[in-house]
């Protein structure tokens, strides 16, 4: 969790390893539009210590399913302008299937359980985006994330 610009290259370097043949990096970027609104920027609020623990939980869940995967997660707080990254996930594995799956799993799971909130500033107003009720023990939600990642 950081208030500074994210660095996808640094995340990828963290997980690189001579035995890993695949690195998949997911970068979530602030878009200029959402639900028909012209977005100006986003402000991210977070419960940072719990967010870091949520990321560790997500990495643990991924490691249980794909033991060879190494995962790095970065997430912004504060104002993030259009075109800037709000989240970076790097997943490395010996083979590509696991790297793709772990990266996708992580972003699905972040949206489910990371205590982070988008405050959208759009042309004409602002709104808190509210997605999922966070419950890390909801195994159905976790399984949905696994299914989206690997099917």
């Amino acid at each position, binding site marked *: 969790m950081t208030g500074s610009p994210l660095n996808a290259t640094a995340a990828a370097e963290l997980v690189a390893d001579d035995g890993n043949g695949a690195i998949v990096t997911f970068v979530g970027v602030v878009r200029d539009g959402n639900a028909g609104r012209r977005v100006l920027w986003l402000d991210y609020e977070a419960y940072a210590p*719990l967010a870091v623990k949520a990321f560790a939980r997500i990495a643990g869940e991924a490691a249980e399913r794909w033991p060879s995967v190494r995962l790095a997660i970065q997430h912004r707080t504060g104002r993030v302008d259009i075109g800037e990254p709000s989240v970076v996930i790097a997943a490395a594995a010996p083979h590509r299937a696991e790297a793709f799956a772990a990266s996708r799993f992580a972003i699905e799971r972040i949206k489910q359980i990371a205590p982070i909130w988008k405050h959208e500033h759009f042309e004409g107003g602002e709104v808190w985006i509210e997605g999922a009720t966070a419950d890390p023990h909801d195994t159905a939600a976790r399984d949905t994330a696994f299914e989206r990642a690997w099917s």
Partner: protein
Amino acid sequence: MVVTIRLFARLREIAGASELRRELPEPATAGTAWAALAAEFPPLADYATAVSCAVNEEYARFGAALQDGDEVAFLPPVSGG
């Protein structure tokens, strides 16, 4: 007992504070802390079925017992990513 209550995003705006200290009658749970808060700030009731909670920086159930000095956080639906 006295607990620290942390609020985020829209809940923070409704209460007008990100952190509150409140005295609760014993025995107290995260759920009784939420009920006291919702009595104080009625618009919080909209979140009754959607709010999550954490005690001392760990996700917890609303039935989780609180101790004097605990930090209990209430979280509206999340939207990271």
